[in-house]
């Protein structure tokens, strides 16, 4: 089945990763065509999950989006990944294919700042609208500074400036 996918999408696929389910890394521009073709031909019509990922120390720091798809009829799960440099965080939105992706993309935008072109109303969903930075990126701290009871030196962590 992996060979079948590789054959049909040979020009889009950049890499195939060995993992617990067939995993393909494809170019960012070909996300929509690949997913539409999967939807129509291979009956992969269920978007299980969509999430962002941030690789800060890749050569150009990369932002990625991971799509988990599931063909319910043949019970095959596929994971599709696509990456883009952090400086240019634009991705095609798949809301036209799966309405499930609406909030998932808003959450990925809210966390990583990935702008999904073609999304009906792309604004923050979980954080406050007035938030300026994208918290899930690796360079932002977890804690917010107002906590006084935890002395960082005790926990072997450097002071949050």
């Amino acid at each position, binding site marked *: 089945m992996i060979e079948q996918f590789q054959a049909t999408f040979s020009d889009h696929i950049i890499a195939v990763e060995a*993992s*617990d*389910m067939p*995993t393909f890394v494809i170019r960012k521009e070909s996300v929509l065509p690949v997913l539409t073709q999967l939807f129509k031909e291979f009956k992969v*019509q*269920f*978007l*299980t*999950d969509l*999430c962002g*990922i*941030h690789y800060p120390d890749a050569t150009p720091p990369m932002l990625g989006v*991971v799509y*988990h798809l599931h063909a*319910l009829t043949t*019970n095959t*799960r596929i*994971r599709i990944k696509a990456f883009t440099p952090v400086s240019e965080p634009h991705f095609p939105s798949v809301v036209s294919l*799966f*309405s*499930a992706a*609406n*909030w*998932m993309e808003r*959450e990925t935008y809210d*966390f990583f700042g990935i702008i999904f072109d073609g999304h009906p109303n792309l604004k*923050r*969903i*979980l*954080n*406050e609208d007035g938030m300026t930075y994208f*918290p*899930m990126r690796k360079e932002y701290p*977890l804690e917010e500074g107002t906590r006084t009871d935890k002395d960082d030196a005790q926990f072997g962590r450097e002071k949050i400036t």
Partner: protein
Amino acid sequence: MSVTLNLGPTHPATHGVFQNIIEIDGETILSADSTIGYIHRAFEKLAEHRPYYQITPITDRLNYCSSPINNLGWHMTVEKLLGVTVPKRVDYMRVIIMELARISDHLICNSILGVDTGAFSGFLYLFQHREKIYEIYEEVCGARLTTNIGRIGGFERDFNDTFYIKINEFLDEFSEALTEFESLLTRNRIFMDRTIGAGGISAERALNYGFTGPNLRAAGVDYDVRVMNPYSSYEDFEFEIPVGTNGDCYDRYMVRNVEMWQSISIIKQALAKMPEGPYHADVPEFYLPPKQDVYQYMEALIYHFKIVMGEIPVPVGEVYHSVEGGNGEVGFYLVSDGGRSPFRLHFRRPSFINYQAYPELIVGGLLSDAILTLSSLNIIAGELDA
């Protein structure tokens, strides 16, 4: 002319903290727009700063009505990454705990649906038995709600005999109480008039919205992770998957009720066929050793120290594992770079995905149906804004 109504964060009907701005003309709803994130606690960012076994307390605050399912789902994900296979006995123990958690989750949803249609006594009847489930949890892990049950590789202790007494007692009493509850609501004229046809969704739209769990089965699709990709030896048990027809509140209620009966029969089968053997896998470098060994043996102390400080050798790689939670497929997408804590951990949260279809379910319906649809979707705020 339309009136804007705010079904806001502190509303008794939302059973949680999320907001809907509803445009109504008389009683019919013209449009709805929901805002969530009122208890967003940044679980995924928190998980990137904790060693593996410390993430379990986060997972049981995801869906706190059935927290053991998330705990054990998380343990299975890490075991899948580490390549640990647990003995049969642990699988059966996990099935019992997860089915108990499923009963407690469906129990809350159905009794609150009863409260929303005006039958308050059903809630009080069934909540008694939820206390009994809490007592059974206390026998296994000492906590009532945020259970933090089990460990990577098994359980911290075997089920003691009071557990078996309590669970058998619970199974008999709860079956009577459930028949009483069903005789109260299922063929109740008012309940049927209120819920049939309220907030229905077609199978095709439900699949497109990424529905899973009882809400999808109510729409007619028999997708259940326990059957589709069986985990923790679910294939050894026979149970049916209830399926509704037009996916409205009555079907969701019926699907959850029948699933409670199925869970009771699964627990009985698991108790009957419980195999002997160790209650944890023999993987000392991942499994936290029991306390008495740590105080006596040097190796146990070293392993304990290494696991607690988070230096367990985790292979680089990524894994996605999903379990059938109370509201649908609870998925854990774990990317590890071999470090002390996961590089990226994403939770597939069914309530977050089910709730985005809420405007489509209620537009055109009556306002009172909107309240019913909200509680029949069983949206849990912790899972919604993880």
